[in-house]
């Protein structure tokens, strides 16, 4: 296997995630796209860990998974709060701070 196989796969996933974050209006779907980005990063970390035969890549992938779990919990709580206040999770309507 080549290192680039994994890096390019992760680049594709990352770009699909960026597309999702930019295009989606629904708060839950934006959070799903962020998960795609975080998973792409994890593939990179583990691939470089395998390249250097160092366990550090895996350890940091595990930390990323833990932080992503925390992020999704808080993110969904915020989306829930937006829904409760505005009866909609359309993020383009959450523009109270717009001048």
């Amino acid at each position, binding site marked *: *296997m080549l290192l680039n196989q994994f890096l390019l796969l992760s680049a594709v996933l990352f770009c699909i995630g960026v597309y999702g974050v930019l295009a989606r209006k629904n708060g839950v779907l934006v959070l799903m796209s962020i998960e795609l980005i975080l998973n792409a990063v994890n593939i990179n970390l583990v691939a470089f860990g*395998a390249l250097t035969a160092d*366990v550090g890549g895996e350890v940091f*992938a595990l930390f990323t998974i833990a932080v992503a779990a925390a992020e999704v919990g808080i993110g969904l709580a915020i989306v829930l709060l937006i829904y409760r206040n505005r009866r909609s999770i359309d993020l383009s309507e959450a523009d109270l701070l717009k001048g």
Partner: protein
Amino acid sequence: MSFLAALSADADIVVAQNVFFAFIAIAMIYAALRVVTTSNVVHAALWLVLVLAGVAAQFILLGSEFVAVTQVLVYIGAVVVLFLFGVMLTRASLGDDESVAKEKRGMAAFVGLLLFAVMATALIDTFEDNRLVVEQPQSVSTVSDAIFSKHIVAFEAVSVLLLAALIGAIVVARKD
């Protein structure tokens, strides 16, 4: 192109690994595209399961069993269920989501493609034909030794972060 030449000239390494890699990668990319284009939120969550399972499979190909198992437990087991709860609690129209029709896709697709072009060029230039030799899987004891010796401070910080996130989520989402 040297990258493709190096990939096809790999007679000495196991072909099966490459075949499985390609198979899983294509499924993952298709599922990821469905996650960001489908108009049904529940379907998007289910396509996300496929992507996450594919990532776990790639971890196994890379010889990281423990990360793969954690991926299945945390992501497919917990995060996707959390997403489905989010969909349920916000009643984000279990059928087709009306906000999808209002998406401005052109600019986002342009940014995504541009980003991919830049990254792909840089990656192919830098790591032309670096081989990845996974002789044996990384054992769980090695990983745990590293976590509980060298990275113990980061580990404790992550546990405090998880506690803070738990309390924060309750405080933010509580009704009163």
